């Protein structure tokens, strides 16, 4: 018995060594051996060996339900790999600050970082995180199932300049939530264009007592800006052109903002103070017939404790701008996160093993109760589609979704734009004047960052 076992081990080791020498060494041996240290014959994601048993990795994640759900299941990962996981689940601003400080100081405090898609240019572009192609090549295909991810999601959240830095973990996309019962009662069709949306909002406004036509996130802040992004892009505007010359005061941008403002009369009176919570709450309490909101509000709408509209709403594509050829240009705003490995991490292999596990198709359905994944297998699953109303709309929206600029000065540009949007929406300045000022601020910011000469 004993002899047989040790013979097995010996055979295995020899086989592995032959494999390694045969495959890896002649090619780019030095490069690979430097970056990835795995035992012979090892494949990530099979969980058959425990080369890093006893290692502890530190994982930073944003405080959202899926992060908590992953942390809850982590003991399974620890049992299968022997790797201990320390979670640092932090609120958005704290996460941003902590990750930024540790990564710039190169302390190696985190082995996995959670990267918002608008930070990718910063993290990957400034070389804080490490590309993972070499890891991918050494990962079991069934566990990784890269082709099962929606490609647009991988490229927006995990890729920078044709290299892949991480795998998606939590994403969101804008869409239109609407009340199926009210639409049926008044025989209104689901709006496909912005004009139809306004018509529907106008028509349905206060048809039912206390139910406004539409609600949205109008408070100065990132949500207001993301809502507007749906519009500016489909109207044909952009934040800046290919040479980083700001174009946020273009005719299209002004038109989009004037359109956005024209929705205010059909919304609850407090709409310009609504952030994510207030808006989701207003729709969940049945106070509006439609809302333009991230898909991630849907769980609030079918939560019996928070919602009065269970079974009476649907999530679909955000409306778009009608083009001369009759097609409709839609640009749902995209948001989401990826898990990446910092360059200064001392446990990159264990970190990758964790990332593979956390985003595996096996785990995906078990995390779905918290927030949806970005895999076709999950989103297309009929049973899950039935349970999670937003999946169908997500499948339509995600492939055509458009991301915000991912360059480092994003948050500064966003703030300037948000001020202008808020000023125009509340009527303290005209849309064109507010955007002209934002454009000047954009120029100031882009010059300071060296994007503009």
């Amino acid at each position, binding site marked *: 018995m004993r002899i047989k076992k040790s013979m097995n081990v010996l055979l295995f080791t020899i086989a592995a060594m032959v494999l390694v020498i045969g495959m890896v060494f002649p090619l780019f041996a030095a490069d690979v051996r430097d970056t990835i240290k795995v035992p012979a014959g090892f494949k990530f994601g099979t969980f058959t060996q425990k080369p890093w048993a006893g290692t502890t990795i530190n994982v930073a994640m944003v405080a959202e339900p899926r992060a908590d759900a992953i942390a809850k299941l982590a003991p399974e990962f620890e049992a299968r790999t022997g790797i201990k996981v320390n979670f640092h689940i932090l609120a958005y601003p704290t996460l941003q600050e902590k990750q930024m400080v540790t990564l710039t100081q190169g302390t190696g405090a985190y082995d996995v970082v959670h990267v918002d898609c608008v930070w990718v240019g910063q993290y990957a572009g*400034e070389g804080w995180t490490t590309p993972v192609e070499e890891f991918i090549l050494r990962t079991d295909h069934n566990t990784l199932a890269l082709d099962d991810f929606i490609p647009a999601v991988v490229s927006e959240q995990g890729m920078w300049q044709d290299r892949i830095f991480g795998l998606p973990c939590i994403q969101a996309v804008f869409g239109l939530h609407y009340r199926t019962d009210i639409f049926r009662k008044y025989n209104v069709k689901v709006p496909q264009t912005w004009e139809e949306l306004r018509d529907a909002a106008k028509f349905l406004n206060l048809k039912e007592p206390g139910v406004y036509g539409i609600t949205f996130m109008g408070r100065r802040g990132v949500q207001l800006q993301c809502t507007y992004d749906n519009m500016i892009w489909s109207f044909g505007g952009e934040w800046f052109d290919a040479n980083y010359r700001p174009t946020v005061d273009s005719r299209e941008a002004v038109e989009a903002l004037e359109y956005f403002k024209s929705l205010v009369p059909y919304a609850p009176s407090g709409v310009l103070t609504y952030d994510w919570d207030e808006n989701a709450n207003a729709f969940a309490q049945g106070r509006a017939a439609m809302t333009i909101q991230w898909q991630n509000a849907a769980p609030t709408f079918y939560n019996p404790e928070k919602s009065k509209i269970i079974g009476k709403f649907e999530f679909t594509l955000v409306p778009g701008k009608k083009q001369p050829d009759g097609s409709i240009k839609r640009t749902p705003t995209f948001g989401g996160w990826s898990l990446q490995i910092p360059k200064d991490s001392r446990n990159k292999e264990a970190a990758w093993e964790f990332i593979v596990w956390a985003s595996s198709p096996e785990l995906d359905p078990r995390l779905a109760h918290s927030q949806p994944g970005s895999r076709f297998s999950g989103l297309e699953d009929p049973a899950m589609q039935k349970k999670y109303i937003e999946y169908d709309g997500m499948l339509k929206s995600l492939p055509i979704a458009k991301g915000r600029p991912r360059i480092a000065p994003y948050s500064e540009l966003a703030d300037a734009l948000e001020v202008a949007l808020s000023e125009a929406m509340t009527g303290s300045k005209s849309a064109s004047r507010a955007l002209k000022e934002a454009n000047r601020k954009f120029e100031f910011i882009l010059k300071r960052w060296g994007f503009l000469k």
Partner: protein
Amino acid sequence: MGRRKSFQSFKRKYAWVFFIAPAVVVLLGIVIFPLIFSLTLSLHEWNIIRAGGWTWSGLENYATILFLDPYFRTALKVTFLYLLGTVPLQFALGLMVALILYRITRKIIGFLRTSLVFPSIMTPIVVGIIWRLMYNPDMGMLNYFLKLLHLPPLNWTGSPLTALPSVMMADIWEWTPFMALILLAGLQALPQEPFEAALVDGASQAQVLRYITLPLLSPVMIVAILIRLMDSFKTFDLIFVLTEGGPGMSTEILNYYTYKYGFKFFHMGYASALSWLLVVIVTVIAMILIKTIRSRGIYAAGG
């Protein structure tokens, strides 16, 4: 014997060092060092996102703020409006409350004093959230009362005209009790003789207030106003929770503006320069205030 004596005199001469040293060390560590550090930083360009580290830029940050930054002036204006709208009102209300409480000598005073401090001991974030709920235009308490009075509902924090006054109102609610407590303590510490003399001379209540109470109280008043003034400059939590500086720039006071540059955009040098301008402005205002009051002689008479 001689050695002992010299040790004694050494002790007498230098014992203070041991008492003062801890305080000085702490002061150096957490006040003086950061001050010098941030002053140095304000003369550099340092963005955490960029790997470059500190680069010397001289007075460029200050020049940019003062001459190029289009929003700095707006933020400054909002800050002064905020100061003018909160501190004088808090002072007036606080003085009134203190004078009323001073009259109450029955047992209930303990209860009143305790309940009075509640707003000021609550975490400012909590205060912000409470007011955010009350200001909610659709479900908030304030609009409900307006409706009962047959008044049109207000869009409290959502309209550029009412947003700043709304934040001020929360601030006044939070800090008036603090003002009142300081003034009450001042009142209770006043000497009784002048009041007795006034009583003998047959002065009216109003005369006592005008010619005795207020002048005697003025040193305390100045301290209270100065503390609130400096605190108001640093208001952050309320604005963060209630409006995030919006709508537009209408509630973005300088402190919030500085926070954004430091911890949202990570321009550390620029944010340090902004903070130093804030320090200069606060110091100048405080000095002017102290000087004018001193020159009127009230301060000297009281102190």
